[in-house]
């Protein structure tokens, strides 16, 4: 069998690796630029197991487990570090909502800790809690090194014989008798039996060419990074008041972002001063000592938003045979990709839909079985 994975981000790499490990046949990966060009190395590089919905929480828990297991096999250290997430809460409603969901998290074995303002101050003396009503702390959450995780998968896949085609954009997919037949590249066509779209924010361009529409749209998100400082912020801090988040990388840089209105679509990956100013204001209010920090760089990437803020994986029965997708992560895809790769590989090879994957099928939109994830960060 000849399988083509399109997209060299974490999703494509994870799928290619998982297919290769299962001896799936001849596996090709096509990437229009270079491996990791897309959102995968523009992310905040954090993972969490705390989502409003059980489906997502469960998926994330298993996904991180997969990555940790794989870490020992990889040539690159994924630098997994559980520094925790802390959500600062500003009203009763927010606290209620976390308390409510906390039952589900406890059931899944990832209970967190509720903190009073005093306790926040004790643990994190640098956080200004004057207007904070409380916080939820998730110790199971943390960070990873997005480049090294991608490179880790890449080298494993390469060793297992995956054939990589960098600088090779796929322009179209030829369908014959409702079966995927060929991929169109600049240099001609490639025959294929299975095509997996792991093309992140660029997926709709390809899907629309073959007449498929899913309710997803890319939204540009900007990020700020400061010069490196002595390590002092362990968790990712999410300010549920201003919509800002901030954390510190193991290299010492302070990284963060804030919700800022942006029209949807594949707009140029540039950053705005207005955005930087908004973040600077919010974050120096929350952590006054950061006033001294200097912003060194900003960049942008796309969140691929789906209507229910959850990823889409697999296929619909009516689609051309051999066509699969894995995208629409809505801003938390890096952490999900290790499991997405594994489950999708199984699904492709056995035709069975693993239980964890079922809620994320693309058919959910037609069947109106949306996941209703609302805990999106940034």
């Amino acid at each position, binding site marked *: 069998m000849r399988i083509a994975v399109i997209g060299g981000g974490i999703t494509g790499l994870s799928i290619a690796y998982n297919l290769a490990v299962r001896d799936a046949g001849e596996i090709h990966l096509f990437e229009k630029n270079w491996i*990791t060009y897309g959102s995968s190395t523009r992310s905040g590089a954090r993972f969490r197991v705390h989502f409003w919905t059980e489906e997502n929480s469960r998926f994330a828990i298993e996904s991180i487990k997969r990555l940790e297991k794989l870490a020992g096999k990889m040539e690159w250290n994924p630098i997994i570090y559980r520094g925790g997430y802390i959500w600062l809460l500003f009203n009763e409603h927010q606290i209620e909502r976390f308390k409510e969901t906390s039952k589900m998290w406890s059931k899944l074995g990832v209970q967190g800790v509720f903190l009073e303002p005093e306790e926040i101050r004790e643990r994190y003396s640098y956080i200004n809690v004057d207007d904070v009503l409380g916080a939820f702390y998730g110790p199971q959450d943390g960070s990873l090194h997005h480049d090294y995780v991608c490179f880790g998968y890449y080298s494993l896949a390469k060793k297992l014989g995956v054939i990589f085609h960098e600088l090779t954009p796929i322009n179209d997919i030829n369908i014959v008798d409702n079966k995927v037949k060929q991929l169109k590249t600049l240099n001609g066509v490639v025959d294929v039996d299975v095509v997996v779209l792991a093309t992140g924010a660029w997926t709709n361009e390809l899907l629309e060419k073959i007449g498929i529409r899913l309710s997803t749209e890319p939204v540009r998100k900007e990020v700020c990074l400061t*010069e490196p400082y002595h390590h002092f912020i362990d968790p990712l801090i999410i300010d549920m008041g201003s919509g800002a988040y901030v954390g510190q990388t193991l290299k010492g840089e302070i990284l963060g972002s804030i919700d800022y209105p942006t029209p949807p679509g594949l707009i140029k990956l540039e950053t705005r001063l207005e955005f930087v100013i908004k973040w600077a204001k919010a974050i120096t209010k929350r952590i006054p000592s950061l006033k001294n920090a200097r912003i060194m760089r900003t960049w942008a990437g796309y969140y691929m938003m789906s209507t229910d803020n959850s990823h889409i994986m697999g296929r619909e029965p009516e689609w051309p045979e051999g066509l699969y997708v894995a995208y629409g992560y809505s801003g938390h895809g890096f952490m999900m990709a290790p499991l997405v790769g594994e489950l999708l590989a199984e699904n492709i090879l056995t035709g069975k839909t693993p239980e964890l994957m079922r809620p994320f099928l693309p058919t959910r939109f037609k069947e109106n079985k949306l996941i209703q994830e609302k805990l999106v960060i940034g």
Partner: protein
Amino acid sequence: MDNFFNGIRDRQGEKVSIFYCGRNIEGYSSEPVSLALYSKGYKVLGRSKKLYRFRGFYSLDPQDRIVLTKIGDEYVNACEIYCQDGQNIEVDFSTPFLVKVFSPLLDGYFQHRRFVKNRILWRLAVDKIKQMANHPEVRHIEARKTGRIIRVASDIVVVGGGLAGLTAAYTVSQLGLKTLIIDKSIELGGRLRYDYMDVPGVPVSREYLLEDILTKISSDGNIKTLTRTIFTGFFEDYPTAYSQEERTLYILKAKGFIIATGVVDLPCIFRNNDIPGIFSASTVLEMVNRYRVKLGEKSLIIGLSQNSLRIAEQLKRSGIDVVMVDNSRSQSIQSDLSRVGECIVNVREIEAVGRKCVEKANIIHDDGRDRLEVDFIVCSAFSNPDILILNQLDSRLIYIGGVGFVPVHDEYMHLKDNIFIAGGVSGSPYSILHLIEGEIAALSAAYKLGAKEVEPLIEEKIKEYRTKLNEMNVKWKNKVFRNSRSELIENSSFTYPPTLFIERPRRDAFICFCEDITTEDISRTVHEKGYTLLELVKRSLGVCTGRCQGRLCMVNAALYVSYLSNLDPSQVGLTKARAPVTSIPLYILAGGEEE
């Protein structure tokens, strides 16, 4: 003024008393702290991030933020801060015990190790690692400071106040357009200020040229200047500039931009090229001529070029012995060498020797080995156009052997949209070309803004430009112009990196000073991991991600990767620079806008 032009100026400014690790030192209020300390023999300004190596300053440029030094309660770039009475400078000379134990984990390669398969061990290790990097602490002291944001409008903004920029600004303003000059230095003039030799091809003396242009600029009501202000790049919504001195971020509003940022003297790559006492070529001239600081008795100049000869000659004039070395023999230059000093060619490897700063240099060459006593080393092998802003702007950059990565522009000095370039940043050698380019860029920008009457003038200037390019044998510019008219970029060919002075990858020959990345690190990434695109080398090692934003390391890294992998430098490519190209403190951004 007169004194200055005679070149016999004394150190200027008030005498002040500053303290280095408790010792009382005399400095001058007109000098950066780094320079005052160096002149008294206190050369170590800080320690490097991972390996805790002793570091001084490589250049006086405020954008080259390699080392931060604790002055008072703040960690700052000691080249940006001027001496003030009572200043306290602290350097921590102790090396944490664990660094030695963990150094194999801390070097550029620690991330790649598979040593941590055990989750508990990894947790302990990662806790150590994150505490061990030598970074300043962010503290509350800045809370008392307030910054501000100001909008400034002008017809044209000129970035860089050297020969090209000043000529452009004056030409623009003569056409009745409002002009704003932004320069990071304390005074306008650029290289004219500190390179005391005449500008090649210009019929008047350097002194006259400088005085003339400065007088014109200062008496012109259409021109405003912002000195000690760094242009920080084009955000999507606004172009910006930042002044540390004024604690101000400027939001610029202009109809056109002329970028005249000159060149960056690249650090040379040799053993211990990171220790104090190794300087960029222009910084040496600045220190010797403009600041009149005694740098030592003996110097080693790396690189044999017209530029090196100018430096050698000026060092000689101020009584410093010079030895020049290079890895190849250039016939054209051979003739006037005897005038300036000893010269060693066909050099294979250079090693700086010294515990805390340069004391000696070992030179290995085809005919054997020399050991020289030197007080400082000058990196003068290669200068690349200062392309940081243009790279951030996504302009096309092509590699031209012997010139470097050059922004693609046409003979109208047009880059893209409403942006024009002139001078060293366009790749032209320091000469009358900078002057002509300044004029052309100005006229073209004015034309773009609607001054259609300048068209015949532009054509005339371009004729003159073409003649001078021919006269000065700058043939490669035609390739650049040609490329500006087509989408395709012509390939360049592989060239030996002009800054490379090691025989094989070395753990003590650095490419990136901010992140402590060595030639050995890069070689392992290229050879073991197979990454040859600079974007991927960056992601694997962190090269170009430090405080200098790749200003000093990007081109060296690209050329070194290209050398190791036998690829053409344009296949290796550069990495994308992003706004702000120089860091801006959060308190300034959070300070809010003033009218």
